[in-house]
């Protein structure tokens, strides 16, 4: 057993294939969630209309199986694997997902980790991309801990299955297992 952390991004081809954005995104989330829970994988997926980017942590064989499966998913096109590295501990305790939209807080994160005020993984190093995804997850957990979910009105609807309420960045914490 070798614990690794993998990071990839891919083009969001849902629209290109004339599929319903929200339904397909939900189906991708549900599949990842099922797979990751069964294979003890943790991490986070963020996406917008242009890109998917995901951090996956776990046994290197399981992580690879997941990467190859995603590589065959026509909704996630031109996958670029930006990192696979051995790690001694996980950075993500469970699995989360979120929409990389626009808000003052997210703009601050995009600038902190990248060169544009937007989600553009193709122009990021593995370290920056992992950092951005982790910060988005942390930002959201912090908000939830603070109970400040009241201003969720201008946020996207959450895409997670079975999530009770929207969170400001569209993040939905994964199931604890």
């Amino acid at each position, binding site marked *: 057993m*070798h614990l*690794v952390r*993998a990071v*990839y991004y891919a083009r969001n081809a849902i629209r290109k294939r004339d599929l319903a954005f929200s339904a397909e995104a939900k189906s991708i989330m549900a599949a990842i969630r099922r797979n990751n829970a069964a294979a003890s994988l943790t991490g986070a997926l963020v996406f917008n209309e242009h890109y998917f980017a995901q951090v996956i942590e776990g046994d*290197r*064989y399981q*992580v*690879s*199986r997941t*990467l*190859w499966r995603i*590589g*065959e998913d026509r909704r996630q096109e*031109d*996958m*670029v*694997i*930006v*990192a*696979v*590295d*051995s790690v001694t501990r996980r950075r993500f305790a469970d699995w989360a997902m979120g929409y990389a939209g626009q808000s003052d807080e997210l703009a601050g994160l995009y600038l902190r980790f990248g060169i544009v005020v937007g989600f553009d993984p193709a122009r990021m*190093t*593995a370290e920056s991309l992992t950092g951005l995804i982790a910060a988005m997850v942390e930002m959201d957990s912090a908000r939830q801990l603070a109970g400040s979910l009241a201003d969720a009105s201008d946020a996207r609807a959450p895409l997670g299955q079975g999530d009770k309420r929207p969170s400001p960045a569209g993040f939905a914490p994964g199931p604890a297992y």
Partner: protein
Amino acid sequence: MLLYRYVFYSENSGLPGGRAGAEQVKDILLACSRNTLASGLSGALVFNERYFVQIMEGDRALASRTILSVVSDPRHRNAVLVRAYPVGERRFLGWTVGYAGHTEAIDALYMRHGVMAGLDPTRMNAESIENLVADLVEVKSPFIVRKKGIGSEPAPPAGRPEIQGEVIRVRAAMPLKPPAGAV
């Protein structure tokens, strides 16, 4: 464009018709000659009857696409990407394909980098795999065939005579069966 190195292995599920060893080297070389140098990818592939171990260097987007196509090849099963990381410099300047058999010198390399005298990437970490492959490609053996030099020659069109000749020479140098005692 970012220079990356990818280290991965897979199980060798053999070829249709059950060919292995020298015949497989030839097939792989043919496939690799259609590949790579002009595209900016370099690396090495070593294999035995059980495993393929591959290192690929080049632009991360192009290498990712190539790896996804390699692992979807039915000859590769249960592929595992062991490491993917940016590098400042290539370690493999051409393309080398080699059969990871057994000689005294090669067994010493397995032992230097691993826990047993044979090619078993499942029991090795990324660094050991990379170092083993780097050492193996330097071994002088008819089973290990190099195509040197990125950009030193223009991209040959498919079927160019020199390429055919190269493959035929390789074939002539190959015993039809792996040496006695091969894994």
